[in-house]
């Protein structure tokens, strides 16, 4: 992993890494340090001075019913987004892999939602499900089902899951399709000659061979659901009704900027830092393994 031939220069390498290090220190390590520092203090009601409380903010946080519920909400939300985005994408990728004519046209039509911002995805789905004028809300009303995600927590969750999963399908589709196309056709043909049906071939040969891609996407989708869906939640539900869609990332924002509870928000940032750390390590260990396949 080392270059045999390197340049000798006393100051040039430092000059080259300086811009990135500077940005990293000012906008990453300083704020992260601040978060850890602030998480050990509470400001007095007038904001004049702060009082050291050690792990008090964390004790308060995990003693708080709403925070524990937010963990559960995040878990439910992430699992639903990951499963729906991945299964729909896998189904489409399997179909696209079978197509001989026109497959590039299908691919083009399926990948562009990747470029839509989560916040815009939120606006589009909010418009379709608007309880008073939305086209799907109207259809549901005619089918005898009352839709109002402003009142019904379950419906609100379904809506933010649908909007978040919709945006992620293209990413999963691309990776699943690449994974499918990398499977040697001779293996599948051999099974077909032995008389295995399409579904039997899929579950006994294709799906196991696809597992590196599936695990990789699992981690990526969970990270997406945890952190990148802020725009969807903020445009559609603002965490409501009654906190039913308040995922952890939304709560850091709501407590810090709307509630002005800086100690708690900082403690939440630290908890999230730990979570991202774990997920990143899982992702990297996995990618390392995949490279050595």
């Amino acid at each position: 992993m080392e270059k045999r031939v390197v340049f000798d220069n006393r100051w040039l390498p430092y000059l080259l890494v300086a811009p990135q290090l500077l940005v990293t220190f000012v906008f990453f390590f300083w704020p992260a340090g601040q978060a850890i520092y602030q998480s050990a203090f509470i400001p007095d009601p007038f904001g004049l001075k702060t009082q050291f409380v050690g792990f008090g903010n964390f004790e308060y946080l995990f003693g708080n019913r709403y925070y524990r519920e937010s963990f559960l909400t995040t878990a439910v939300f992430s699992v639903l987004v990951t499963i729906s985005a991945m299964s729909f994408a896998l189904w489409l990728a399997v179909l696209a892999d079978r197509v001989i004519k026109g497959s590039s046209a299908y691919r083009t039509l399926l990948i562009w939602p990747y470029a839509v911002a989560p916040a815009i995805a939120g606006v589009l789905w909010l418009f379709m499900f608007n309880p008073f004028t939305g086209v799907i809300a109207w259809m549901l009303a005619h089918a005898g089902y009352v839709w109002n995600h402003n009142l019904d927590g379950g419906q609100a969750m379904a809506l933010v899951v649908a909007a978040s999963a919709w945006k992620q399908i293209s990413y999963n589709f691309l990776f699943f399709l690449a994974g499918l196309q990398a499977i040697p056709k001779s293996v599948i043909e051999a099974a077909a000659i032995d008389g295995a049906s399409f579904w039997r071939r899929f579950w006994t040969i294709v799906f196991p061979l696809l597992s590196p891609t599936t695990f990789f996407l699992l981690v990526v989708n969970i990270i997406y659901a945890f952190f990148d869906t802020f725009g969807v939640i903020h445009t559609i539900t603002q965490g409501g009704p009654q906190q039913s869609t308040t995922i952890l990332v939304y709560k850091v924002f709501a407590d810090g900027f709307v509630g002005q509870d800086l100690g708690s928000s900082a403690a939440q940032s630290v908890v999230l830092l730990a979570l991202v750390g774990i997920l990143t390590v899982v992702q990297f260990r996995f990618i390392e393994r995949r490279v050595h396949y």
Partner: protein
Amino acid sequence: MSGMVEKRGLGTWLTHAGLIFGIAVICFPIWIAFVASTVTQDDLIRPPMPLLPGPHFLDNYLEALLTGGVAPVWQMLLNSLVMALGITIGKIIISLLSAYAIVYFKFRFRMLFFWLIFMTLMLPVEVRIVPTYEVVASLGLLNSYTGLILPLIASATATFLFRQLFMTIPDELTEAARVDGAGPVRFFIDILLPMSRTNIAALFVILFIYGWNQYLWPLLITTEPSMNTVIMGIKQMLPTGDQTVEWPVIMATAMLAMLPPVLVVIGMQKLFVKGLVESEK
């Protein structure tokens, strides 16, 4: 390519039917948004809304572009463009330089620097949101392009990618350049940069989309309407409570907001797929 497996008539038809159904599901939200951006408010507030485009395309898009919400959409699009390009170009430049230093030089603290950069992978803006805001506010960077761009510019992913790429470039090339009397700067400009061209282009596509689609950060630090970006500006147009809003104008804004990144993905599909697979997030 797919050989002899499954080419019978019915199977093929079912495959195409399934794909078309999938595309219909995925495209439906955009179609609805497009239709809504071509009709009048009256058409929309008395459901069911029409499912085919109306004649008010120009009215709605002109109103969005010239009047918009708290700021005209042309201005928000311009801000988005400056932010997206700033993030993209900034990230590429600082990552190229630091990856070059880490691969082609031996110096003290090299590995320490590498790990410091690597650790930023673990700190997305959403996580350290309040303290980053405070840092940027204390530097007096609220409502400025610098404040919009700089905090999002450090990227371990891009540094990694260039490091991997540089590792694959044969040492013979460097030796030959040195024999010819080329110093580190010459080598970087004349050999390394041209060899990294496609990778830079692929990364450009991915980073442009990333930069354009930023939401939370501009939402926090641009309190002045004239600095709003289009992705966050559209939130300000949405209804709060029971008030009625001009849905056709909002939907025209949504269409305008997603047009640049979608065009980039469709127009540069090969580079986009390459960038996506290489950066793996």
